[in-house]
């Protein structure tokens, strides 16, 4: 008799929903009914009836089942888990450490992501704040005061539109006048941000009126360090660059100036900008603009509103405003846009590390579970419910992951601080790392997910076995282990795929940093200290200025330990001045663009720029001698190809005095590693009277490392010339150089550490899987050996078995890595995302590592005595 069978999926649904107690009876009842109806009214009616019963029964049955997971039962499983885990302390410690590393790294990175990307900006209703800029010639540009005034007056999309710009002033509070950073802000900026003064008040309309007293607001830090936190400072007059300002307020300690999000310096004071007018010179552009949208106005609507103003301005002022468009973005997104991609990539890589860790632990538990097949089969036979076993394994996985999370959280907090300390200053808001509820929630999610992964996989494994096997199941039964091996193979492939993604990301960054290191600046940055001497009283008198710099550099040169001293309008990597010129080539004048600087005779020697032809400046290049210039090789290559450059004249514009080229020096990248090599023109410092530039920077090359050690002597020498002279922007060129590549190094360092961690964990995983499967196959291997298989062929068999899983893993990993690399494009330096050599190296490395990790257990298996292997049962 072949009775029709009830629908399988419906049966499965009931099987899953019902408790162990009810399952059999529910299924039998329905089956009995099914058979009756099938006999009486046919299969179709029976099936329909069965399905209806299954669908309506699932919910009440599942409700009972869920109610049955009582705390007492979970506690029992928990105690059992702890007992089981304590029985093999070695494996347990390995599992906990593995998870702790993954969860710890994840917590650390997520804290940074939380602080930088997720925490709302520290202003009132920050979601309505937008950042505004203009697009000029396809590039982002700051906004001029005239356009800002038009935007502010002409649009009702905003509650307010504010602006600020960074500035520096010499502050005369204290013994030595010092240059300090501050912001010039629009009168409404604090109100727009919802920021209040801790003492006194913020700016009001009257402060911006023409002819109003100059007013000043101090930052909390400046108030504490420079004014001893004295509340009586309000109303006092303070000299800023020689001009008296009345202190009207002190900001609160938790106030973050918006300028902090766009630069690495902290504003110490705030000045009130005079009310902007549309009549300001249209060429000057230096404002960063922040707006508060009216409630209900979207960013795009506001941008359209500004677009209408742009169209009008373009018609009115075609010279300056043609094709200029205002752009808006939410402020929170704008201030983090430079770091968002890299942080998310790093977070994704850490997520993969956690995945590998969880898989390793799952593997460990699977191996243990296979050892307990007999025990589980007995328990199932004696009436233990399948859900008992499931809960038990889940609890075991969660116990491990919780222990891992506790350790991970501890080391994560520590790692996070390490991370924050190593982070480049270009990552904003890192000074506010806290263990927020969001971070704890994220850690909890990671813990639960990794615990469930680690517990569920072995549970499914052992339950699958429990259903098919009987009490006679023995360790060497190959039918049961075949599925286990397939599971483990899949996990192995996943681990390898995850590891290869992280390794590839790291590889691309390592290559970027290597290429960055190889970029030749054209000058030597080591042991060079630079600083600025802005002497206000000599600004209008180039001769006096030159005399001052000569005198200072003579005195500094006498300091022991100083190898060379130079002065200029500015030094490389510290900004500069560029413009057009005419090269009077023998074939006719050529228009050119170049970077300009005015430099002392010692400039090239101090910076280590080689003189290729002709000469450097000398003491005989005076203000009354014929004007001379020195140019870089790039200028010669580009504008005087095949011409003897010495003796050729250039001039800054038609009709301006001709300047004779007396030397050619090596090319430099004036703006650092990321800049292109551009033509350079060097003027003699002694002849600056004819250029719109002032000497104000000095460089000192030390004989030994750490040029900052010379600073006290240098200060003394300068004070000897002019006690009132302030020294500003003291930076070693090496510091500037490493700051410019800091974010690259930081990303590389992070991803490389995670890649190392991922690789190590994945290899441990591969080793574990292969070792276990080789041990399971001891008998088979013994038979092969007894039948004459060589050791080499056995090693090949085992390693080949592992690679059969590892290679698909590698392929899948490479495919995922291509996606990651594309996302990472903006983090790379002259490395294409699909960089074939990097892919090849990482693939080779991964294959070699997987082979190695499976070779070790394979060799051990091959070395086993076949007789002992066969005698095992």
């Amino acid at each position, binding site marked *: 008799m072949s009775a029709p069978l009830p629908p399988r999926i419906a049966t499965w649904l009931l099987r899953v929903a019902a408790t162990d107690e*009810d399952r059999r009876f529910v299924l039998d*009842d329905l089956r*009995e009914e099914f058979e009756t109806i099938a006999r009486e009214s046919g299969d179709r009616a029976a099936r329909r009836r069965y399905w209806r*019963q299954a669908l*309506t*029964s*699932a*919910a*009440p049955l599942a409700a009972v089942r869920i109610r049955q997971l009582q705390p007492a039962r979970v506690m029992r499983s928990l105690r059992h888990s702890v007992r089981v885990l304590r029985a093999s302390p070695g494996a347990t410690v390995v599992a906990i450490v593995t998870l702790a590393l993954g969860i710890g790294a994840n917590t650390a990175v997520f804290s940074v992501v939380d602080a930088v990307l997720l925490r709302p900006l520290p202003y009132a209703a920050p979601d309505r704040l937008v950042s505004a800029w203009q697009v000029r010639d396809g590039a982002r540009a700051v906004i001029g005061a005239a356009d800002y005034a038009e935007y502010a007056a002409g649009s009702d999309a905003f509650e307010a539109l504010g602006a600020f710009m960074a500035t520096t002033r010499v502050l005369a509070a204290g013994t030595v006048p010092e240059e300090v950073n501050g912001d010039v802000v629009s009168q409404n900026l604090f109100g727009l941000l919802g920021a209040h003064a801790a003492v006194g008040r913020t700016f009001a309309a009257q402060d911006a009126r023409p002819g109003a007293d100059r007013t000043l607001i101090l930052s909390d830090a400046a108030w504490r360090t420079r004014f001893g936190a004295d509340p009586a400072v309000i109303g006092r007059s303070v000299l800023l660059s020689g001009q008296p300002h009345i202190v009207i307020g002190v900001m609160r300690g938790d106030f973050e100036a918006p300028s902090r999000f766009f630069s690495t310096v902290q504003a110490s004071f705030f000045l009130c900008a005079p009310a902007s007018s549309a009549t300001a010179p249209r060429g000057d552009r230096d404002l960063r603009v922040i707006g508060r949208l009216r409630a209900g106005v979207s960013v795009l609507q506001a941008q359209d509103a500004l677009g209408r103003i742009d169209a009008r301005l373009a018609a009115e002022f075609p010279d300056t405003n043609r094709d200029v468009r205002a752009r808006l973005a939410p402020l929170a997104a704008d201030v983090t846009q430079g770091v968002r991609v890299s942080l998310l990539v790093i977070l994704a890589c850490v997520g993969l590390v956690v995945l590998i860790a969880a898989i390793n632990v799952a593997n460990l538990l699977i191996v243990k579970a296979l050892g307990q097949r007999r025990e589980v089969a007995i328990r199932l036979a004696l009436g233990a419910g399948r859900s008992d076993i499931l809960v038990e394994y889940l609890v075991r996985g969660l116990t491990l992951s919780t222990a891992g999370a506790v350790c991970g959280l501890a080391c994560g907090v520590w790692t996070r601080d390490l991370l924050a300390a190593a982070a480049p200053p270009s990552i904003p808001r890192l000074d506010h790392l806290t263990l927020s509820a969001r971070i704890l929630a994220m850690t909890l999610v990671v813990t639960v997910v990794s615990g469930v992964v680690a517990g569920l996989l072995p549970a499914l494994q052992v339950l699958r076995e429990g259903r098919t096997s009987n009490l006679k199941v023995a360790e060497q039964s190959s039918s049961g282990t075949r599925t286990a091996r397939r599971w483990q193979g899949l996990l192995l492939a996943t681990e390898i795929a995850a590891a290869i993604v992280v390794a590839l990301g790291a590889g691309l960054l390592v290559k970027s940093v290597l290429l960055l290191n190889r970029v030749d600046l054209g000058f030597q940055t080591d042991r060079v200290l630079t600083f600025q001497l802005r002497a206000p009283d000599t600004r209008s008198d180039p001769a006096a200025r030159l005399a001052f710099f000569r005198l200072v550099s003579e005195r500094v040169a006498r300091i022991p330990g100083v190898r060379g001293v130079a002065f200029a309008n500015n030094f490389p990597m510290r900004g500069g001045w560029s413009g057009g010129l005419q090269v009077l080539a023998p074939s006719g004048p050529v228009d050119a663009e170049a970077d300009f600087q005015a430099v002392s005779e010692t400039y090239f020697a101090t910076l280590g720029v080689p003189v290729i032809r002709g000469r450097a400046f000398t003491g005989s290049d005076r203000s009354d001698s014929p004007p001379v210039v020195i140019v870089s090789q790039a200028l010669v290559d580009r504008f005087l190809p095949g011409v003897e450059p010495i003796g050729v004249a250039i001039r800054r514009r038609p009709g301006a005095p001709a300047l004779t080229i007396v030397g050619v020096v090596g090319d430099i990248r004036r703006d650092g590693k990321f800049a292109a090599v551009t033509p350079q023109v060097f003027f003699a410092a002694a002849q600056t009277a004819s250029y719109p530039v002032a000497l104000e920077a000095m460089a000192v090359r030390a004989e030994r490392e750490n040029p900052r050690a010379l600073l006290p002597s240098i200060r003394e020498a300068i004070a000897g010339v002019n006690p009132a002279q302030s020294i500003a922007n003291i930076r070693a060129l090496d510091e500037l150089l490493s700051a410019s590549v800091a974010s690259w190094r930081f990303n590389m360092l992070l991803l490389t550490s995670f890649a190392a961690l991922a690789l190590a964990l994945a290899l441990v995983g591969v080793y574990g899987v292969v070792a276990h499967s080789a041990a399971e196959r001891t008998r088979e291997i013994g038979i092969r050996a007894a039948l004459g298989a060589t050791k080499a062929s056995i090693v090949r068999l085992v390693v080949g078995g592992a690679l059969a899983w590892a290679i698909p893993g590698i392929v899948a990993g490479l495919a995922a890595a291509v996606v990651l690399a594309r996302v990472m494009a903006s983090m790379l330096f002259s490395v294409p995302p699909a960089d074939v050599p990097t892919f090849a190296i990482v693939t080779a490395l991964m294959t070699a590592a997987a082979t190695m990790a499976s070779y070790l257990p394979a060799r051990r298996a091959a070395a086993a005595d076949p007789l002992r292997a066969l005698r095992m049962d």
Partner: protein
Amino acid sequence: MGKGQYLGEFELYIMAATARLGAANNDAYGLTIRREIETRAGRGVAIGAVYATLGRLEEKRLVAFSISEPRPVPGGRSRKHVHLTAAGRRALAQSTAMLTRMLPGLAPAPKKP
């Protein structure tokens, strides 16, 4: 049945069906209980709801189960037979008594079309 412990509507149906089937030939188990309710009350009943409710009634000690020997036919199975306990019979009696006291005088339910 303790004070304040009343039978829910569906519980009452199940208890009543169990009592009827038990009185007839001691044949109350999931399938027959469900059929009894379906034929008498004329409403569809999910087998899952029957078992879930039986579980709850057992917790309240109003019913008890006995697992029968497998029936002596090929593929024969054991059944989970349901009996009312003494407390269960009392609860059923009380509930039906309350119900009968409440019903007189009410308009008859509208006839099904």
